């Protein structure tokens, strides 16, 4: 299951469950964040966390075949396709913006997956599906985090508060980090799905905390405080869970103590 190896990843939760969680959770979060008053924009962040988990699982499945290059490349590709699709969907979709963006992302993903397999000849059997999933997840992450900052997914609100101010670059990197980092950090023969996905939740929560700070510009300190607080709670739970899973999977966890002082070394 290491990078450069071949064969599918062993899994606990089936892919369909994670896809459903990502798509439905992501879209519900984005729509709730848009409908509810500004103080509830954290729903967008929760949607982004669902999508991050899905993206990390898709990266995990496709990268287990060995991409021939680093795992980060696919995370950057996800967010590259995601940005293009998200801005397009919001610009033409209006109320259905996130859904249009998602569909466009899936189409771009399938095309790039097919190009990678047919023209470049990567020969990864799940490439088309995985690319579609990764592009869709990247789009939902961008939309979810944009909703947290702008308080709505209206095209003009997102353009003025997220894109023109440059915070889209921040979303780009922290969203991409959430998708690419969990498998990149956990890969190896002892990689376990639940540990990787909990790490994705933790990364998504960090993204929510960071965009929570930014949201104080548009939504006031109260809403920003709620965003940050919810992010910190999710982060703490996910971090402790991740630490517990590390202790479960490790052969032994021992304290090494402090570095020896100069006298003790002699």
């Amino acid at each position, binding site marked *: 299951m290491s990078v450069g190896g071949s064969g599918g990843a062993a899994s606990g939760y089936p892919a369909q469950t994670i896809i459903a969680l990502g798509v439905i959770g992501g879209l519900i979060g984005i729509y709730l964040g848009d409908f509810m008053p500004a103080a509830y924009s954290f729903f967008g962040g929760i949607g982004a966390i669902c999508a991050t988990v899905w993206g990390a699982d898709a990266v995990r499945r496709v990268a287990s075949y060995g991409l021939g290059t680093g795992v980060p490349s696919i995370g950057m590709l996800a967010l590259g396709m995601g940005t*293009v699709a998200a801005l397009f969907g919001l610009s*033409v979709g209006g109320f259905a913006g996130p859904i249009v963006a998602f569909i466009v992302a899936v189409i771009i993903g399938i095309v790039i997956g097919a190009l990678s397999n047919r023209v*470049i000849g990567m020969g990864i059997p799940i490439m088309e599906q995985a690319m579609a999933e990764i592009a869709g997840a990247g789009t939902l992450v961008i939309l979810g985090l944009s909703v947290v900052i702008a308080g709505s997914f209206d095209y003009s609100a997102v353009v003025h508060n997220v894109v023109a101010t440059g915070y889209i670059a921040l979303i780009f990197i922290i969203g991409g980090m959430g998708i690419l980092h969990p498998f990149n950090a956990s890969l190896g023969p002892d990689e376990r799905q639940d540990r990787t996905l909990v790490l994705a939740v933790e990364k998504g929560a960090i993204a929510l905390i960071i965009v929570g700070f930014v949201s104080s510009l548009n939504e006031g300190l109260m809403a920003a405080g709620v965003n940050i607080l919810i992010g910190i709670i999710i982060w703490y739970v996910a971090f402790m869970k991740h630490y517990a899973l590390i202790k479960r999977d490790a052969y032994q966890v021992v304290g090494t103590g402090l570095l020896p002082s100069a006298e003790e070394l002699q």
Partner: protein
Amino acid sequence: MIEGIMANILWMILITLGGALISWGVHFVPVGGAPAAMAQATGVGTGTVQLAAGAGLTGLVSAGFMMNVTENLPLILASGAVGAMIMISVTMIVATWVYVYGVGCVPSSAKVKTDPITKYRQDIYVSQGTEGHGIPTVSFVSGVIGAALGGIGGGLVYYSLIKVGTSIGLTAGVTPDVVGNSLVGVAAMFAIGIFLVNAVIPSYNIGGTIEGFHDPKWKKWPKAVISSLIASLLCAIVAVVAILQLGGI
């Protein structure tokens, strides 16, 4: 939407060409990946995307800077190319110092017997069990060429997107504030998105590492360029429509 696309077909072709140039340029950049980080392969020790994006985005910024003072396309593209070339040259020269003075290995390529540019012997300097190390002259020159292509491509994409916006009456000029120009923000984000897509496709084509234009893998570039043409065309349509919608808000 359709008439908007038809009216901007020239800019869409330029965006597609820009994407293909980026894709071709990545094949020139000496990417060593993780093995190079341990001085076990020729090239800079990081991935294609990081290296190409680092150089290409610098090119984008320098092209955008030039657009503040002139509308002249060749000047803008030259500025983008030079920005990217400076960025990658600095990266490669500092990496070479680390390899030579820190790791203590001789820059050498395992893919060719003599450096095609300097004609120096390579094979006797390659440590056993490695695929070369450091950045030999030919890889350095190749990397600078690749960055120039990437900078031109990125600049072309950005310039075309800005032109699509200005054609419907949006402004991209110098504003009193540093932030707040919607067109510049959206065009820059699309340019970055298109850039990253076109940096990853060739990265899969070369399998993560390449030494430069003397590497046998370099000959595979048509596959990646064809893929990038199709992917960029798709992105160009989407980007042009999204920018045209900016006029309505």
